[in-house]
């Protein structure tokens, strides 16, 4: 500590150690908060349309599925001092022949910590993403919608979760151009 340069290095070194320990403790506090968000989904409408997939490279005709739904959710319990934002999404899972497991996000939303309300009440909204299957067609497959969330901390471990089985909703993809009210 005899010269300015050495003192500068020492302070910086100790600062790094302290910052590291502080960041670890802050990250650990994230685990002490119980997480129990609630949600419910109601599917209003599923439509399948055939059209050209976007872009210049492809001339393939794909089937696109549009889903309209209601959503009620409360994420208040997920927010603590270490939460930066929450990424919420609704995905549809379905099976198939060539691809036994498929899952596609049809809607997502970011709820930052500064948002005035951590509750969502959405009525009859259209899915953000019109999904198309990798095989190009849907053909009457069973699908299930489920809501999941991802907590993004200010520092620390990212946490994922899904709201329980009881709120998943099953539906059947209708054939092209047919509308199937559930």
């Amino acid at each position, binding site marked *: 500590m005899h010269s300015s*340069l050495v003192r500068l290095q020492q302070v910086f070194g100790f600062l790094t150690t302290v910052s590291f320990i502080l960041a670890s403790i802050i990250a650990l506090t994230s685990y002490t908060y119980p997480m129990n968000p609630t949600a419910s989904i109601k599917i209003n409408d599923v439509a399948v349309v055939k059209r050209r997939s976007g872009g210049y490279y492809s001339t393939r005709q794909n089937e696109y599925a549009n889903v309209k739904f209601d959503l009620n959710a409360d994420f208040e319990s997920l927010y603590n001092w270490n939460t930066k*934002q929450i*990424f919420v999404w609704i995905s549809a899972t379905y099976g198939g022949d060539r691809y036994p497991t*498929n899952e596609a996000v049809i809607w997502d939303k970011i709820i930052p910590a500064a948002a005035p309300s951590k509750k969502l009440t959405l009525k009859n909204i259209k899915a953000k993403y019109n999904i198309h299957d990798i095989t190009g067609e849907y053909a009457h497959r069973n699908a299930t919608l489920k809501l999941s969330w991802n907590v993004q901390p200010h*520092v620390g*471990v990212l946490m994922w979760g899904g709201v329980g089985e009881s709120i998943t909703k099953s539906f059947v993809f209708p054939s092209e151009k047919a509308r199937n009210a559930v």
Partner: protein
Amino acid sequence: MLSALSAYQPRQLLAQVLNFGLILSTAFMMWKSLSLVTNSPSPIVVVLSGSMEPAFQRGDLLFLWNRGVDTQVGEIVVFNIQGKSIPIVHRALRKHVSRPSAKQSKSRAYPPLKLLTKGDNNAQDDVVLYTPGQHYIDREKEVIGSVKAYVPFVGYVTILLSEHPMVKTVVLGIMGLFVILQRE
């Protein structure tokens, strides 16, 4: 500084070189061990673009884990497009698990998994970023890990250094100035 050079002692010099080499190789060993534990070629990455804002800003440090072979939709994955060297950090939007062929189900531990990704801050999904004609990325071949933890801002130094070589010269210049002016 100049007086030190005039008292040239080969053994001391060699000892210093070895010491330096020891520090370097220890750091390298720690990095590679972390690579082994996480099964990822690059277990700690710095966010380079703003495509995942507001979640990740440029300069954030991400810790990856590559042993979760059944990547779920909604996980944030880091991947390299074949042929391009810059790693991309985006969220998995869609996943399709193919039925393994008879040969594959005997040799592989997990079936092949295709993912479609999209940055939170991007309006479109990542098909424009993939190689032309590619619509999905392969979990095994192109994904180098899934983000499990993160620390903000710490990596900004590396971005500064790589994008503004001027900063490197300025810092080295100031350090050199200090060393010369010091009366040691």
